[in-house]
């Protein structure tokens, strides 16, 4: 009778324990004794294989192919394997308190309890086992299995008993666990979707509203004759409101391209004011493209849109204009921008003693004028075409000098002038040696 203090374990033909449904191995230890310390009447089980599962602690005697188990449900308390001077050289032990029935059988819901010591005589780390034991006790997987088993039995009793119990350990056990996890996630998602569906139905209404607006605007722009001031005003309002909400291209470009570009055109004119100031009155179109799109963030415009928007400025009264240089470079500049003023600054720069001697490069001018080098070059080329500067092309690069040709008299080329530009140049070159 004493020998039956622990429920038995069924073993397979090859000595492996037969697992309960949902039971998963968690830890294996060899050379383990099970002692009932305080009850000498209960026999000690020596040197067996200890298998910790999600449901039980199994002890298997490999030599006799028999085993017994402590159901985890019966574990009342686990004591930490404390190390002390006393047990430093002894085999590590983990003591657990299990509940027993009045006649000493270990089982769940017992009225009495016993202390069982798991003596680990093999090479094991008691802390690992202890940790795993706590884990399985915490997860209480045996309860879930009981529940599901109960459900199964409830739904179809005949079926339940006739069902073949598939082994649910190892990989299939893991898969099963995954499955359970997915099912619970699915459930919570479904609940969330209830709310989302409610949101979606509202959004549908919004989209429908926007669509109605679009149709109205389309009709409005197509029926040109009926356009009076009132209508136009409200149309503009609607456009502005939609813009602020973030729906810009409500009107498709094909049907009413002008409206879209008009809006864009105004936006661009406002936007470009600040960068223009910073850049000294002129910015390359490519730079505006980058700046504008970066500012918009999401609804980026294409290069064609930008060009068209600039072209529309002619129709409005905006203080900016698009300008194309001979070289093909396109810039946006203030209408108030004066080329002559820039030329005056360039020519005065070109007449400084250093410049008379060495000329100026586009980057020198850019630095002095406070504009981009590419634009400085454009200005210098324009100044050259007006006869203010001459170019000097050499392996050192591209430089500009003040135009002296104008002042040289071809019928008197050998006389040395002392006045005017040439005079200044002569003195500058002679002083440098």
């Amino acid at each position, binding site marked *: 009778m004493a020998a039956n203090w622990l429920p038995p374990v069924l073993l397979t033909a090859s000595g492996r324990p037969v697992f309960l449904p949902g039971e998963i191995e968690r830890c294996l230890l060899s050379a383990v004794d099970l002692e009932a310390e305080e009850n000498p009447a209960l026999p000690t089980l020596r040197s067996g294989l200890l298998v910790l599962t999600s449901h039980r602690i199994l002890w298997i005697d490999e030599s006799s192919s028999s085993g017994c188990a402590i159901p985890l449900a019966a574990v009342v308390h686990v004591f930490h394997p404390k190390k002390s001077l006393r047990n430093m050289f002894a085999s590590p032990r983990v003591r657990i308190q299990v509940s027993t029935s009045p006649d000493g059988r270990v089982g769940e819901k017992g009225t009495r309890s016993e202390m069982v010591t798991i003596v680990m005589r093999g090479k094991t780390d008691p802390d690992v086992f202890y940790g795993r034991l706590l884990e399985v006790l915490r997860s209480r997987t045996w309860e879930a299995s009981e529940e599901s088993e109960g459900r199964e039995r409830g739904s179809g009793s005949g079926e339940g008993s006739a069902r073949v119990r598939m082994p649910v350990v190892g990989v299939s056990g893991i898969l099963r666990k995954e499955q359970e996890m997915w099912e619970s996630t699915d459930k919570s998602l479904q609940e969330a979707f209830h709310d989302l569906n409610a949101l979606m139905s509202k959004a549908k209404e919004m989209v429908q509203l926007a669509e109605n607006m679009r149709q109205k605007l389309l009709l409005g722009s197509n029926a040109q004759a009926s356009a009076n001031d009132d209508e136009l005003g409200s149309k503009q309002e609607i456009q502005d409101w939609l813009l602020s909400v973030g729906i810009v291209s409500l009107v498709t470009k094909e049907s009413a391209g002008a409206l879209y570009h008009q809006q864009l055109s105004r936006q661009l004119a406002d936007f470009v004011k600040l960068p223009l100031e910073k850049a000294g009155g002129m910015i390359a179109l490519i730079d505006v493209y980058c700046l504008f799109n970066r500012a918009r963030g999401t609804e980026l415009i294409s290069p064609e849109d930008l060009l068209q928007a600039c072209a529309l400025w002619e129709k409005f009264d905006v203080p900016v204009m698009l300008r194309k240089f001979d070289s093909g470079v396109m810039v946006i500049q203030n209408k108030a921008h004066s080329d002559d003023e820039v030329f005056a600054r360039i020519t005065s720069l070109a007449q400084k003693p250093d410049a008379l001697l060495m000329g100026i490069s586009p980057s020198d001018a850019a630095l002095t004028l406070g504009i981009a080098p590419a634009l400085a070059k454009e200005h210098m080329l324009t100044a050259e*075409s007006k006869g203010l500067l001459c*170019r000097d092309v050499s392996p050192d690069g591209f*430089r500009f000098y003040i*135009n002296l*040709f104008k002042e040289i008299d071809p019928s008197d080329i050998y006389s040395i002038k002392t006045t005017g530009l040439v005079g200044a140049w*002569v003195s500058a070159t002679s002083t440098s040696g």
Partner: protein
Amino acid sequence: MQKLGGFKLPHFFNYPPYFTLQPVRETREKQVQLWKELILDYCRSQKIFVIGLEEDFPLFSNPVIERSLSHEAREVFLSALVAEGRAEWMDKSHKKCLILWLRIQAWADYILNFVKENGFEDSVMTVEDIQSGIETRGTELAGIDRCVLMRALRLLEQKGKAAIFKGTSTDDEGVKFSA
């Protein structure tokens, strides 16, 4: 100002843009004018009659400012001289240019004048004498290009002022001047 082999260069020879072919029309026209003058003056002073475009012509480089005329620029300036009748291309590929710092007609006049002043009418001179003989030393005729001389002489021949006859070899070509 710098000198190039005894020739005094104008001050704008040190102006770097002078050596870059100017794209702007008005500026280019001025530049071309200046170069034409300079080339003619230089060639006259150094008695240069032929310029080879692919050779190093001292006038086309200025080591002081480290600039040289590009091949394109040289061709442009020389072509301008040719258009004016002050130069002639010696080949179709424009590799050599004959510089007529005196036009052929001017040469002819010069020769005639020289003959008159030195009383060489009715006398015979070899072509070589005219080119490098003692009589012509110190005149423009000294070191004259043979082709140019022959052309001038032929021009005189056409006008009946001279008669060219061949000797036993080319060196012996002679001219008889008539008043």
